[in-house]
């Protein structure tokens, strides 16, 4: 099998000089596919994602994007390489308008980004309607759309989402998932961490179940949903 598009391989590490949170953990995503990291609380899901984005020190293991080893790059440099990251919290500029949020997302671009902004507005029509409203005044679901839209403005080749549906209603969650599928269909790889494991695995091409910072189960979304052990332990039967 050829090497995946983005892979964090055998990552071991933790925050600062603290104890290791990840132990020999591997997460990967193929072009245009959706990979989901699920697992119980404190399993190191978000940490695994942050490790791939360069926000913590890896003791061992490496991160490769399109075959290139990017383990030593800062998060900012990884953005330049085509990685988009949507943090779980504080992922928008609350005091700025929706449009300004998107402009700031495109800050590193020196070319004309109005086309990309139109694509984002096509994907999230509500943002077009509220483009001149301050992002802090939007609802939870709309904020997440701003956050995803901001990350899309750099035209990333891979989009990383840390619990995009945290704190939004089930209806909004379904809608967000639909949009995420649309993004993936446009050729952007998606790597996301999700609390709502069942729904997330349903749309995922690949799922990674982490327990205590280790890979417990890995497989396609369908396989994991069908797996008896996984169902019993993580999906509530």
């Amino acid at each position, binding site marked *: 099998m050829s090497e995946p598009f983005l892979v964090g391989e055998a990552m071991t590490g933790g925050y600062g000089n603290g104890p290791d949170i990840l132990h020999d953990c591997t997460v990967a995503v193929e072009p245009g596919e959706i990979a989901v990291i699920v697992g119980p609380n404190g399993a190191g899901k978000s940490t695994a994602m942050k490790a791939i984005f360069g926000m913590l020190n890896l003791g061992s293991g490496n991160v490769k994007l399109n075959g290139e080893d990017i383990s030593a790059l800062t998060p*900012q440099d990884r953005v330049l390489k085509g990685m988009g990251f949507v943090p779980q919290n*504080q992922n928008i500029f609350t005091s700025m308008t929706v449009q300004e949020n998107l*402009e*700031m997302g495109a*800050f*590193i671009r020196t070319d004309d980004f109005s086309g990309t902004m139109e694509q984002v507005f096509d994907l999230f029509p509500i943002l077009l309607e509220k483009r001149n409203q301050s992002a802090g005044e939007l609802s939870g679901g709309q904020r997440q759309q701003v956050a995803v839209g*901001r990350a899309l403005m750099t035209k990333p080749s891979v989009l990383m989402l840390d619990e995009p549906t945290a704190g939004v209603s089930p209806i909004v969650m379904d809608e967000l998932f639909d949009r995420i599928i649309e993004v993936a269909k446009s050729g952007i790889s998606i790597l996301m961490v999700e609390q709502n494991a069942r729904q997330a695995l349903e749309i995922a091409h690949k799922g990674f179940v982490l327990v205590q910072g280790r890979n417990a189960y890995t497989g396609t979304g369908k396989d994991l949903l069908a797996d008896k052990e996984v169902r019993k332990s993580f999906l509530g039967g």
Partner: protein
Amino acid sequence: MEILHALIVLSNFVIIPAIAYGSQLALGALGVTLVYGILRFSNFAHGDTMAFGTMIVILLTWWLQGIGISIAPLPTALIALPFAIFVTAILLLGTDRFVLRFYRNQKSAPVILLIVSLGIMFVYNGLVRFVIGVGDQRFSDGARFIISARDFKKITGLSEGLAIKTTQGITVITAVVIVAILFWFLNKTRTGKSMRAFSDNEDLALLSGINPERVVLYTWLIVAVLATIAGTLYGLDKSFKPFVYFQLLLPIFAAAIVGGLGNPLGAIAGGFVIAFSEVTVTYAWKKVLMYALPENLEPSGLTQLLATEYKFAVSFAILLIVLLFKPTGLFKGKAL
């Protein structure tokens, strides 16, 4: 007629001076609020930055006067201003490079940066006193009045005069222009927006590829402009004395906090709130009341609530009231 006289006296002694003073405080508070919003610390060196900038203006003004350059009726200091801003910018950027950057890289707590700024304040303070001395300096030249009290009486035939000093006119016009440019810069330009983004959410700004060192550079440049202009306008309007500029720190911080720290619009509003409170509380109202009240109700005393020596108590009192009841300020700012 009586009411008109009351209004003229009020304008002459309260409204016009307070508008000028408020504009100067607003410009000062804008500098403080920008540093707080973007660099995340209370910059105690701001008053002495103003003093430094003004000192450079004064030295250049003397030199220009010496070689006979003038733009009368406007004060010569206005020509010196751009050069003084440049020198002040170099001082601020040098300070940032050799002092503040170290603490920024350490990710020091805001309170540590505050203490560092206190140290910088003492250094600037000493530098200014060493170069120009502790005494009073007047450097205002050109026409003294746009309209003097005597001319006003002659034109209107009223018995009370209304004087508008040239420096007051310049202060208000300059402040309006500078504030307009600043808001245009912050709201419309890419660099300005990146500064607001950095102030709003530092981590996300970094993720968006905004270079923090550039944001810091632009912040200090703007602070140099604001501080030098605010200091020069204050010096032209009153006089320049290093210690007075050090003391200005209190009303300036009060203005920034009353308006809501980190909020530029609030800083302007705060400047005027503080200025009007200070002037109205320390003004002797006897003359206004004499005109405004019926004959029998005329006050026998001066009706001055507070002696002018205590004007700082006004800033202090307002500061306390705001911190107790509305810690985020009148406009939504960051809580201390």
